[in-house]
């Protein structure tokens, strides 16, 4: 990161390659659409480069990028007056023939559309993603989301019990 702070673009390219998938996945959970997720991810890295001198928490790059991603998404929601329905949340039969993104989604199950997950609120989905997939600690998630650790533990506990019950009844 020190090289990036000196304006070394090759180092920033390496940083991009290291974190782009994690940030894309998080952006996908936040936006529910690969198109929006890609725009958001792009903006995250542009902002990270623009604000590289503000990075102080050495060794916590991913959390820093997550924070930028989350804040940008909040700004994005505030800016957008009419939110289009994320069509790629579902596979529409026939649409995949002329839409590569739909083809990508058809036949694949994604975290936010997984039967165990999709009924949860957006907030719970985000917490479950950060905890289960990214394996962040409660402290790290609390720092990112501005929620208390205790509230996160309760929310995660309830979600686990719900998922366990759903798993029991699922075929």
């Amino acid at each position: 990161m020190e090289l990036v702070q000196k304006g070394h673009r090759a180092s920033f390219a390496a940083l991009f390659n290291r974190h782009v998938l994690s940030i894309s996945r998080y952006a996908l959970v936040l936006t529910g659409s690969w198109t929006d997720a890609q725009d958001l991810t792009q903006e995250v890295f542009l902002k990270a480069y623009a604000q590289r001198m503000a990075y102080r928490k050495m060794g916590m790059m991913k959390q820093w990028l997550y924070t930028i991603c989350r804040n940008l998404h909040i700004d994005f929601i505030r800016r957008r007056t009419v939110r289009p329905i994320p069509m790629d949340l579902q596979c529409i039969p026939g649409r995949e023939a002329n839409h590569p993104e739909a083809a990508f989604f058809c036949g694949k199950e994604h975290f936010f559309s997984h039967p165990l997950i999709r009924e949860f609120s957006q907030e719970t989905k985000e917490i479950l993603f950060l905890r289960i997939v990214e394996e962040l600690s409660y402290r790290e998630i609390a720092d990112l989301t501005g929620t208390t650790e205790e509230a996160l533990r309760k929310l995660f506990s309830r979600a686990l019990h719900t998922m366990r019950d759903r798993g029991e009844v699922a075929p």
Partner: protein
Amino acid sequence: MKSCQAFQDWLESSPRLTLANLPPGLAEHANSCAACEKQLTRLRILRKDALEDVPPTGEIEKMWQRIDPALHLEDPTPSPSAAFVQPLFSLLSGKGLPLGAGVLALLLLGVGLWFVLGESLPVLGRIEGSGGELIHSSSRLELRVVPVQWLSQDRVVLTGAQSWAAISFIDGRRITVEGNGRLLLSAEGFSTEEGRFRASFTKGGGQFRVRVPGAILGIRGTTIDFDLVGGEGRLELIEGRVDVVPEDGRPAFDWKPQSRLLIRSGKLLFDSEKESSPATNVATESLRSRPAAY
């Protein structure tokens, strides 16, 4: 052997849910309790599936191709001090005063050239859009809905029927353009030679000046349809009022809404030059209806 509750407690508190080896006691419980074993398996599959969520093929490369040029825009032009001062001192110390004087002259020339040619471009605002390109010096950046900086001398080219661009200036002014066209922004507004587009202007801290073939438009916040090809065409004022200053020395006039300006051979067409003159004495005619394209 531990209970289901102990297993749940571990799931809730473990920093690594997908740890390969469960703590002593829990492994035995998971082996004997179908519900807990199933829950753990489902969580692991959920995580594995989520980690396989990657953007469609080629999208990461495209993302980087859009980010990389913008990094160049973010960096200011480097200071000339490192390039000139350091070699000067090393030469002065090694070769003596005559050579140093020559180098100093070169330094002054270089600094002068830097001020003329290498001055960093000021940021005028932000641009977002779709279906076009932002051109900055030699680099090109595809217009995206993600806003990027708009620098002095930047240009935007809209190329598709559904193209649009929105430029928000630091002083609060805003231009929205929809259609196909070529715009060249200046510190005061923009100039355009050809294109078929609708432009809406929101006045903030100052006025817009738009140069078209044959005239300069002083815009106070309005909506205009542009239809220009090769120095000819028409402009239709949908709403608002615009001051028009003809470039051929004729007096300025106030362009009223719901009328159109005609441009022929790079000049405003006046009544005396029109084949069928309307009743007005300025180069406008009333709009009967808007073009179907809009």
